[in-house]
């Protein structure tokens, strides 16, 4: 049953996103991956939410790839109607990482984006409040760095 859903979703995504799309594929039943360009992120997100029914945001993850000089940000979104999880991937350059914020599309991404910002340094433009969430109040990024980046080494005794 689900095999059919992913294929037709993939077709709809390829038609709908057209030039914003970099790559789209199916991992396994109930998992789809879509990679879009950073500039078209908000339109792609709106298309996925309104036309294809991906309404339930699960997570926002940032992965640091220092050798590729980019930080990949992945939005995992679940569709309650079609029971499929979509991984929406974009890239931000590692030197001044900046992406448009998807808080207006999926409001549940509020704290997730804030955490990704403080841990990896990705600036989400349009986010209402990008202050420190989990780190201590006196954390200074310029002296201590961003914790989840690969150059932040945990000192273990």
């Amino acid at each position, binding site marked *: 049953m689900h095999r059919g859903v992913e294929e037709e979703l993939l077709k709809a995504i390829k038609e709908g996103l057209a030039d914003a799309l970099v790559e789209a594929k199916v991992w396994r039943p109930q*998992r789809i991956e879509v990679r879009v360009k950073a500039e078209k992120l908000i339109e792609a997100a709106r298309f996925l939410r309104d036309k294809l029914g991906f309404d339930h945001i*699960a997570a926002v993850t940032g992965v640091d790839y220092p050798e590729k000089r980019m930080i990949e940000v992945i939005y995992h979104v679940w569709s*309650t109607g079609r*029971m499929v999880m979509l991984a929406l991937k974009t890239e931000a350059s590692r030197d001044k990482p900046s992406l448009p914020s998807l808080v207006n599309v999926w409001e*549940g991404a509020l704290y997730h984006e804030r955490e990704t910002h403080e841990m990896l340094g990705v600036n989400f433009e349009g986010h209402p409040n990008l202050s420190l969430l989990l780190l201590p109040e006196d954390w200074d990024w310029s002296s201590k760095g961003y914790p989840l980046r690969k150059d932040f080494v*945990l000192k273990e005794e």
Partner: protein
Amino acid sequence: MGSKVEAMTLSMGPQHPITGHFRFILEIDGDIVLKLEPDIGYTHRGIEKVAEYRTYIQNLPVVERVNSYCDSMGTLLGYPRVLEELMGIEVPERAKYLRVIAAELNRIASHLYAICLVAISTGFETMLMWTINDRELILDLLEMLTGQRITLTYPTVGGVRYDLPQAFKEEALKRLSYLERRLEDYRKMMLENHTFKMRTQGVGVLKPSDAIRLGIVGPNLRASGVKADVRKDEPYEVYDRMDFEIPVLKNWDCYDRALIRALEIEQSIRIVKQALKELPEGPIRARIPPLPPKGEAYSRVEAARGEFGYYLVSDGKDKPYRLRIVSPSFRNLIALPFLCRNVPLADVPIIYISLDLIPLDVDR
């Protein structure tokens, strides 16, 4: 006529009888809370970063500490599953059943703890004592199974770590039937208690459309009328062979969130009984290759508090490249400031506790 409201800032800080290790910053005008801002991070241990420095097997107890004291199986089960998905391992049948039994027992214990907290947030000491007392029965069972009451570390990559001891089945059935009778007592004592209903009905109403928009998961979502449960939407282990229901409620308030936990305890008892009856013989662990391939995987598990997600990016080495832990309380956190706007101060603990936010789960 613009009159400026003189709001007092009150910090329900990390040391407070009801918030656990959570800090809220409230703006109060008289008795009405205008705005609530959660200030989390008091128990942040950086487990996602620590996980990158440990091998996959060494990570099992580390990752479990995200939330071990309430729901160890729910927290941990997704981690071996994400590795099994990546490596393409098939877990033996007996191990699947054992995982289901332990997970559902842990769900019962966690829901009993949640009901205890709901009771004490309204000042109902008696229910606190009763539910914590009954939770001991389940913890004794888990101790029989793993040697640990709370930090079980029961599943491992490829199966489970221990097999069922001799007298487990009879003990479990005895205790579960006692628990079913106790649920009747809870219903009469708390759920039909007029004062409890006065405190919790109509408080913190979360509409289904808001719940989906905000990304709420778990019993909160089901109490808000949305039929979404990972055990039915994306069945894992042997849940597709189990006969159970997903209760969904209609009033969307704090009373429903307390009620649905009691209903889910009933369903969990059903599942454990079926699983104990159908338990097959066989090995409890599968052989696993030494290293996972390059790739990524996302696994979802229905923990007691909601959907627990693990997103693993592996680069072929023995340590994870990136492990993202999507805990249900972190996803439910956004409901708290959303619901606590213009409510009386006395409702804030009730709303907070009914959402079942565990500070450890939120902070990781």
